[in-house]
């Protein structure tokens, strides 16, 4: 079994699916000859040619709009947006058309496509190469929102995304692109949309997270372990739809919840998870549901390290929940 990092897993998955399915096309900025600024599409132009690996002009509404039109005619585009921070020129296409085409046409015109985009901090990218605005998308009915936290899941989720009949926003935590290597089976497999992963079992505190924060939370869990706090770590993987069952089962067991995400706290997706739990599992709760999140400022540059939730900061909340 090859040991791959996340970019390699993404790259291989795109390649395999393109081989399998002649309707699959890729489009985006610098994805062809340059192989993508993170090299996720490296080698694909050579194998599939410029008609299936399309370098586009610098226009995100063009990319998403064109992909929608391709999809309606029966192609299955995977669009790359260079950074999530640059998706906003296409926000109208995404919110007004991509998400609503199937609904507004009474099912006559479903759009089957994937938007891949790197997101999150950790590469010293400042305000515009670091944002985690997944909540904009989870608040948009019609979209599926996925985010892997390791190479294995990246393949399994991307396969599901590419075979999904619904439009998928596929968020890749760029700071994990090359930091973890993992065995990734060469054969075809997929991870179902809407299923969380129980990263670690524990019965004292439930820690819920996704994407780039999964690794940070692992560290926090290890730190807590040293203090004999047994934390159950849930990686949501799928934000819309999300796996409430797994969450509630865990909360019933632990009665204590910490939610961690990198995005700013206010109106972040953590609020939704918290609200769902307090709506449905009130009687199981033995402590306030706590959130550890990015501060409610734009993403800073010089102070990035301070901004990103650290294992220690998460640990403090775990302790607080545990000792409540």
């Amino acid at each position, binding site marked *: 079994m090859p040991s791959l990092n996340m970019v390699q897993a993404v790259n291989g998955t795109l390649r395999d699916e393109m081989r399998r399915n002649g309707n699959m*096309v890729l489009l985006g900025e610098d994805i062809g000859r340059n192989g993508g600024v993170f090299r996720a599409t490296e080698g694909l132009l050579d194998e599939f040619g410029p*008609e299936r690996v*399309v370098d*586009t*002009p610098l*226009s995100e*509404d*063009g990319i998403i*709009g*064109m*992909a*929608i*039109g*391709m*999809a*309606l*005619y*029966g*192609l299955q*585009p995977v669009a790359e947006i260079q950074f999530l921070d640059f998706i906003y*020129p296409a926000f*109208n*296409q995404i919110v*007004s*058309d991509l998400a*609503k*085409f*199937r*609904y*507004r*046409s*009474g*099912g*006559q*015109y*479903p759009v089957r496509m994937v938007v891949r985009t790197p997101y999150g901090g950790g590469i010293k990218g400042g305000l515009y190469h670091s944002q985690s605005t997944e909540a904009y998308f989870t608040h948009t*009915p*019609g979209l*599926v929102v996925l985010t892997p936290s390791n190479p294995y899941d990246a393949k399994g989720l991307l396969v599901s995304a590419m075979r999904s*009949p*619904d439009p998928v926003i596929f968020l890749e935590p760029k700071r994990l692109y090359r930091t973890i290597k993992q065995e990734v089976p060469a054969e075809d497999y997929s991870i179902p949309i*809407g299923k969380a992963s129980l990263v670690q079992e524990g019965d004292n505190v439930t820690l819920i997270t996704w994407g780039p924060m999964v690794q940070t939370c692992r560290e926090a869990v290890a730190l807590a372990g040293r203090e004999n706090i047994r934390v159950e770590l849930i990686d949501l993987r799928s934000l819309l*739809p999300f796996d*409430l069952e797994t969450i509630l089962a865990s909360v019933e067991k632990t009665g204590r919840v910490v939610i961690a995400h990198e995005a700013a706290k206010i109106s972040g997706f953590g609020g939704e998870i918290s609200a769902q739990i307090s709506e449905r599992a009130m009687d199981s709760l033995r402590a306030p549901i706590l959130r550890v999140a990015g501060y409610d400022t734009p993403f800073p540059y010089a102070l990035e390290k301070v901004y990103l939730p650290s294992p220690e900061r998460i640990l403090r909340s775990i302790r607080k929940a545990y000792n409540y």
Partner: protein
Amino acid sequence: MYRYMLMVRRFNERMLLLQRQGRIAFFTESNGEEACQIGGAWPLNRGDWVYQSYRDAGMCLVRGVTLKALVDQLMGNADDPNKGRQMGAHWGYKESNMVSLASPVGTHIVQAVGTAYAAKFKKDKTVCFTTFGDGATSQGEFHSALNFAGVFKVPVVFFCENNQYAISLPFRRQTASENVAIKAEAYGFEGVLVDGNDVLAVYKATKAAVDKARSGGGPTLIEAVTYRMAGHSSSDDPNRYRSPEETEHWKARDPIKRFRAYMTKKGLLTEQEDRAMQEKVENEIVTVIKESEKVPQPPVTSMFTDVYAEIPWYLKEESDELTREGS
């Protein structure tokens, strides 16, 4: 052609009436733009795709959409192929390749380029035709669409119905360029200016562009110069922002009158035939309205379908609660 033009005009008038009577909620007429509508749609094949705008009832008719399907949409009833999900005049008819449209102006123009790309990719002989107004040319997606079309040289025809207004904004304040057609130069392909009140001229220009696209010649931008004779929509009062003189000036150039005069002169139409045709069309519409009004509204649970291919757990919950407890 003439019959279709008449049909659109009558349809517009009837629908506006229904709206005034509160029997439908909203409508966008196309009075004055019938030559664009019919002449524009005429040269297209059945398999061609149209990314339409909210004034394109006429194109829908030419492409085989039934009157009933249009009225059902306006009523948002259970027979509407769009399941009553959209405001009036936001048509979508898969069988006629009339793609469903959104309200935000301009988003469809660039989607048309994607469809044209896909057709070319699949080596189909499909042409993608897209209509929009003069106002839409100010949106970013107009720019992206034309730019992408030029770069990828796809079989798309951009059809701008310049009806002189975007709601209240006159064309000369929409852009400082002489006209819309000239804008094609910025994208490396041809722009064509045509009298939008002359149905045969519109037909000819569109036919040429469609043929060119079909034979691999790439995109064309057509500007059909016309006039929105009525208000922007059933909610609009055009007297606030334009003069009766102007409206009169254009009334004299009514495309239907012009075509009728032409047909009569050529001996292709007698007054009697004309009157018979008008009556027939009128009756058809009235019959359809009656039928459509009998159709009930879509069932309450239909609100939760088509958000996704399958209903996710939380929508199932919401749907069940609604069914159980009421709204």
